[in-house]
């Protein structure tokens, strides 16, 4: 029975998406809020992540876009006086914050009860020493680990345990500050760093090569327990589970193994006293039944989100209900709706999770995978064979791979080493090694991956080789083709295997040829349901996937043309994450409300759009042309929405159009006119709209000629790559030549686009919706930073506070012209450069952009709802309100995850590097900025600031803020040039020496190590990225020692002004609805 005394409950969100804490907490929080709402409980949410679904209207009753820190949460509690608080739905951020509030006695003082797992149980699992003690009490083995508080103690412990050892920081997110140490020297470096994150570190014996197995366990207050799912890591222990390929259920465990660990999980959860959900991770000896418990997460986690999607069991929803006091037996299985929630799902398929890395975006980053997490997203694929699931998954990752085979040749100098020291390319190295004749035993020896997985992968190679022996698509026989499809080969892979290089002549055409051949042979995928009970009971589930390992569809199609298919955004990656999930979910909701059947295709387990409650039919499947066509042929939809899921769906526009698939909204030919650089430029010229000068060039000489015309700096990028992979700004001949030699090929076949780079210009964004070329609603926002910082990394202010009225007028006019010229019907975004009232267009996307949720929520006008109505042909009214009527300001700030990315240079440039963002509100720029900066982990410094600013102009800009800091009583440290500049202008500072300098001045790095500095402002001199320079070392030290760092002059000055003008206490605690 639920507790009737609860009237108001506070839920803590997880803030900005970061490595180790991503979209999964939007999903779990949204589910929990839904569970509370059903009970008629008033909900209050604190989460500054404005792009999430949980911070949408109607999900929680009150939403605070404020930092999830003890200070702010206490102030919200003081204002709202909730009866209960939920700590386990917002990742480690919420959990740590909750524990801090509990320890400080805040929760007790306000009579706020922690629902679900008691705080003591959380602390028992978070503090390693306590944890080991608790498990010792019931004779459960843990990894022998010693908690130490000094470096010397760490060395002693390691010597006792014997190298190799692993160290980890206590209370850290997803393995932050952890790593393997083979010897004393490695230990010293890593321990020092770990201590900067936590006062306590743990030294453990390494169990490299053991299997890593996880269980998701649920317990109610009556002590009833279930394990919802188990999962097995493809990669053995040693690689963080967030970095591992994971399958569910486990594949290489016998019944004895499986149930031994299951029984232990239940024993543990009972002893610790979890009420709700937890995750137990094991190391399991591949040659005996020996085990160790690695850790227990007493909260919803990335794994629990994955388990929910893998099984159809809504863990977060159930956990929230259990927190309210329900017993499992009182709740229903939400898939069958008849059977009890007290059961363990039986799967009749296999799922495969694969991480998505974006390491290529970072300068200097260490690509070797280990015990700390670096991936930025993940995918989940579903199949009825392992081969099918893994090949689907490798395509879903979206980095140009077609599966396990038939990819672009990988260049690997030392295969042995690449197998032994895994990087983000590991699985493809295995493919290559197999092709080179490595045996299963050899690969197993080097990787310690269980041979079962390797045998299965070998089977894929065997089929590929059989296909490769053919010479023409006409030779394909049905049995071989069927086997290939059952092993997850795409039509493209089959065609490439048969045709080899001939494929390049017409990749799309040959793919379609294979499609025609197999359809003629009756080889088509079937649709299966995920029903939690392996077909034992009828299920009214709309949760579907496609497979070639079956002969019958689970559902009947109506053929009524009432479906509207919305394509989702795929794996979270740098440049595309939760914001597109919000867009997709809102599009689905609008489709549903308008009386159409809402159909979603997406494969990201971290999302809300893949919650089967959000639509009428969910295909948890690929967003490839082939798979989308399969689904279109089954659904025979009224139309397909491509413009709310970011770039992945947009890229399919032309091909779907060629197959006569009805695309809703802006027509594909116009999308092509915007995406194709040449067509777009020609169009802009015809409209008289200015663009930065650019040219597509095929030789170095041509590039030099062009640079002579426009002058440095220039932006250099390969053509047809959006969102800037391999982009670079070159400021002089040396850099240009260097870049072209190292990072890009210049040839007839691979032209390079060189663009004039306008310096010190403002960047302005226009997000809008048009109907038949007429703008219906728009939002203009401005970047705090000057152009040159990727719009995904920039701090964005809306409504703009510093734009000339003239500039705004010109932008509106130009956007109107473009909308008309491109016949836009739906969402779009245009980026402008503005300098002295001149505006230039830099980019135009005929789809929803990253900032749609931000401007929609600040303006309180749902742009996606309006856009979807337009696409469905429903009437929309021009809204009465205007952004310039708002009495408040919204600021979107970026979250960086450099601390996870060892060695990466934490600078901003034309390539996006942030992993998430927040959006906060305030009465003015300063309040909104403070809120958002504090939300992304910046802190207001207390005593000392290190200044080191680049160019003369930047130094000049920093002058006034430096004076403010001085007057505020901050101690300033500065590197030579900056010190002199400050001195010349009468601002006292202490000169420090850079790493490469000699002399008696205090060492900057030393000061950072000793934490004598609590904020670093380091502005790189030029836009070029350099490793190993003094600046790099200072920036990296700030990151490694967890000291707030700002690298942009404009942002630094605005932030400094903000915290000099107002303190944390001056920030008003206002919920979203109180901003009117």
């Amino acid at each position, binding site marked *: 029975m639920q507790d009737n005394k609860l009237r108001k409950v506070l839920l803590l969100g997880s803030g900005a998406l970061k490595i180790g804490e991503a979209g999964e907490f939007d999903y779990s929080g949204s589910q929990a809020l839904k569970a509370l709402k059903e009970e008629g409980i008033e909900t209050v949410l604190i989460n500054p992540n404005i792009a999430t679904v949980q911070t949408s209207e109607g999900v929680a009753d009150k939403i605070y876009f404020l930092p999830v820190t003890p200070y702010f949460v206490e102030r919200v509690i003081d204002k709202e006086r909730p009866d209960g608080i939920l700590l386990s739905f917002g990742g480690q951020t919420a959990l740590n914050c909750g524990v801090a509030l509990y320890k400080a006695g805040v929760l007790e003082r306000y009579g706020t009860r922690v629902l679900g797992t008691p705080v003591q149980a959380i602390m028992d699992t978070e503090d390693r020493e306590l944890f080991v003690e608790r498990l010792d009490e019931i004779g459960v083995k843990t990894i022998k680990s010693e908690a130490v508080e000094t470096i010397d103690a760490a060395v002693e412990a390691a010597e006792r345990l014997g190298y190799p050892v692993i160290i980890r920081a206590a209370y850290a997110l997803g393995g932050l500050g952890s790593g393997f140490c083979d010897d004393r020297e490695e230990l010293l470096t890593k321990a020092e760093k770990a201590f900067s994150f936590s006062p306590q570190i743990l030294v453990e014996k390494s169990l490299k090569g053991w299997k890593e197995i996880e269980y998701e366990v649920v317990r109610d207050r009556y002590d009833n327990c279930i394990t919802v799912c188990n999962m097995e890591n493809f990669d053995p222990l040693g690689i963080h589970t967030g970095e591992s390929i994971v399958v569910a*259920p486990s594949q290489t465990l016998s019944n004895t193994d499986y149930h031994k660990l299951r029984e232990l999980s239940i024993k543990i959860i009972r002893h610790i006293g979890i009420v709700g959900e937890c995750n137990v991770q094991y190391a399991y000896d591949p040659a005996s039944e020996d085990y160790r418990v690695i850790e227990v997460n007493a909260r919803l986690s990335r794994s629990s989100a994955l388990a929910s999607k893998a099984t159809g069991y809504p863990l977060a929803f159930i956990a929230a209900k259990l927190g309210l006091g329900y017993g499992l037996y009182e709740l229903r299985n939400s898939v069958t709706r008849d059977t009890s929630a007290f*059961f363990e799902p039986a*799967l009749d398929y296999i799922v495969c999770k694969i991480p998505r890395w974006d390491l290529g975006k970072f300068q200097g980053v260490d690509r070797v995978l280990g015990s700390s997490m670096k991936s930025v997203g993940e995918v989940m694929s579903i199949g009825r064979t392992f081969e099918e699931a893994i090949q689907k998954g490798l395509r879903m990752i979206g980095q140009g791979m077609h599966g396990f085979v038939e990819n672009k040749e990988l260049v690997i100098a030392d295969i042995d080493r690449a197998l032994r020291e895994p990087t983000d390319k590991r699985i493809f190295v295995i493919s290559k090694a197999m092709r080179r004749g490595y045996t299963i035993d050899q690969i197993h020896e080097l990787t310690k991956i269980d041979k079962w997985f390797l045998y299965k992968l070998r089977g894929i190679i065997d089929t590929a080789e059989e296909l490769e022996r053919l010479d023409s698509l006409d030779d394909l026989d049905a049995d071989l083709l069927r086997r290939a499809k059952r092993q997850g080969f795409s039509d493209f892979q089959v065609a490439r295997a048969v045709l080899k290089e001939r494929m390049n002549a017409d990749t799309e055409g040959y793919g379609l040829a294979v499609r025609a051949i197999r359809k003629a042979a009756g080889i088509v995928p079937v649709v299966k349901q995920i029903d939690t009970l392996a077909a034992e009971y009828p299920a009214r589930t709309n949760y579907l996937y496609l497979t070639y390992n079956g002969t019958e569809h689970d559902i009947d199609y109506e053929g009524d043309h009432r479906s509207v298919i919305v394509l989702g955004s795929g794996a979270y990656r740098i440049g595309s994450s939760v914001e597109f999930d919000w867009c997709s979910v809102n599009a689905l909701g609008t489709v549903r409300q308008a009386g159409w059947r809402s159909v979603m295709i997406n494969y990201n387990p971290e999302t809300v759009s893949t919650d089967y409650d959000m639509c009428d039919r969910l295909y948890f499947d690929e967003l490839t042309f082939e798979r989308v066509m399969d689904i279109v042929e089954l659904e025979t939809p009224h139309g397909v929405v491509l413009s709310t899921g970011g770039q992945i769906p947009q890229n399919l526009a032309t091909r779907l159009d060629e197959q006569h698939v009805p695309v809703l909204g802006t027509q594909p030919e116009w999308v092509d006119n915007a995406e194709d650089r040449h067509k777009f430029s020609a169009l802009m010229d015809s409209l008289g709209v200015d663009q930065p000068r650019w040219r597509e060039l095929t030789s170095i000489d041509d590039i030099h000629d062009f640079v002579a015309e426009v002058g440095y700096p220039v932006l250099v990028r390969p053509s047809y790559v959006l969102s800037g992979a391999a982009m670079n700004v070159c400021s002089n001949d040396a850099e240009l030549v260097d870049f072209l030699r190292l990072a890009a090929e210049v040839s007839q076949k691979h032209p390079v686009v060189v663009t004039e780079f306008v310096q010190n210009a403002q960047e302005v964004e226009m997000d809008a919706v048009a109907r038949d070329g007429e703008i219906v609603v728009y939002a203009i926002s401005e970047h705090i930073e000057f152009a040159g910082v990727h719009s995904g990394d920039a701090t964005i202010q809306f409504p703009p506070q510093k734009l000339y009225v003239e500039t705004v007028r010109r932008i509106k006019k130009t956007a109107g012209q473009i909308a008309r010229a491109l016949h836009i019907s739906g969402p779009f975004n245009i980026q402008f450069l503005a300098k002295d009232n001149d505006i230039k267009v830099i980019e135009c996307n005929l789809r929803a952009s990253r900032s749609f949720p931000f401007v929609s929520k600040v303006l309180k006008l749902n742009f996606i709802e309006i856009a979807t109505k337009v696409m469905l042909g429903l009437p929309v009214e021009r809204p009465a309100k205007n952004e310039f009527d708002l009495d408040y300001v919204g600021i979107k700030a970026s979250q960086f995850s450099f601390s996870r990315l060892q060695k990466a240079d934490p600078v901003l440039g034309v390539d996006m590097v942030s992993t998430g963002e927040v959006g906060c509100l305030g009465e003015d720029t300063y309040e909104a900025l403070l809120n958002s900066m504090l939300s992304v982990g910046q802190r207001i410094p207390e005593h000392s600031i290190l200044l080191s600013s680049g160019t003369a102009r930047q130094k000049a800009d920093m002058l006034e803020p430096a004076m403010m800091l001085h007057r505020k009583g901050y101690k300033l440290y500065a590197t030579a040039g900056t010190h002199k500049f400050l001195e010349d202008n009468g601002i006292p500072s202490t000169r420090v020496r850079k790493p490469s300098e000699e002399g008696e001045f205090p060492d900057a790095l030393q000061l950072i190590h000793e934490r004598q500095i609590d904020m670093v402002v380091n502005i790189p001199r030029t836009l070029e990225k350099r490793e190993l320079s003094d600046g790099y070392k200072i920036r990296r030290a700030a990151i490694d020692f967890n000291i707030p760092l700002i690298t942009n002059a404009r942002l630094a000055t605005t932030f400094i002004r903000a915290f000099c003008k107002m303190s944390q206490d001056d920030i008003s605690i206002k919920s979203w609805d109180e901003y009117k």
Partner: protein
Amino acid sequence: MQTTRKAKIVLEDGTVLEGESFGSERSVAGEVVFNTAMTGYPESLTDPSYAGQVLVSTYPLVGNYGVPQRGTDGRGLSLNYESEKIHVEALVVADYSRDYSHWKADRSLADWLEDEGVPAVTGIDTRALTKVLREHGSMKGKVIIEGCDEPAWVDPNADNLVARVSCREVIEYAGGSKVVVLVDCGVKHNIIRCLLRRGVTVVRVPWDYDFNTLRWDGLFISNGPGDPSLCGVAVENIRRALDAGKPVCGICMGNQLLSQAAGATTYKLKYGHRGHNQPVRRVGTDRCYITSQNHGFAVDDTRLGNDWAPLFTNMNDGTNEGIRHKVKPFFSAQFHPEAASGPTDTDFIFDEFTSLL
């Protein structure tokens, strides 16, 4: 590629699904049932309760961890299996894994099936097949291997399968001073292991043996295959044993026979319960358990005598999962507390029983 023979499964209602053979090359007939477990094929295949049945695995990937070695411990109990041999008539899966990997494996599932003369089919849409069985109920069926003679239809439930799988003579497993008579209706070895682990002496007797002539402290009635109404002799023996008032416990078939002795009747379920995820609730309490199950018949507990009451019920379909006597130490479970394969949550049943001795 190994060449394989084509194979198919044919159901009484005309359903035909085609795949490839991976076990013994001979065709068989039996009752087709499905199991939703995701692990435990060596245990399931050797569970005597599957006698006469063609087992369909809803979990598609089977054979991944090979088969552990055969052989018995000092007491004659199988080291890794639930009986001396494979009891299913045939096995049907979606994706048999020829290659296997496990430190305990000493051969592949295919080799084992072939050794024991049991046919098997892979490449079958077992989800589609399961849906047919769910909608129409368990059915007679055949597994036909290409090139092998087609057998006639067989209804195993018409035979006394218990008599087929029960031991032929009394076997004693020496333990402590307390003596438990175990009526072997097709006992899984883990039941014996679970009892022995608690320090009792187990006297395993054939299903129709009149154990009332023996000296015993407790009576345990095992699991077993087929229709419980064909075991009248055993029910009669149990009914007489109840007069002694000494502890009595039963599992699965044991629950059904004890219920009959207590006046209730049994009936055939449409498609039975076979899997590792069946939820049961202890009647009148908040306590729920995940159980391993394998049964096609159930007890109609509305017809129990006045002195008896249901002990557990199935939380999915409300069927009986165990009974108890209101005053005397008699109780039983329809599920398998000995697990093997499956969850071990209800192991306490053995504690409850032995503590009464």
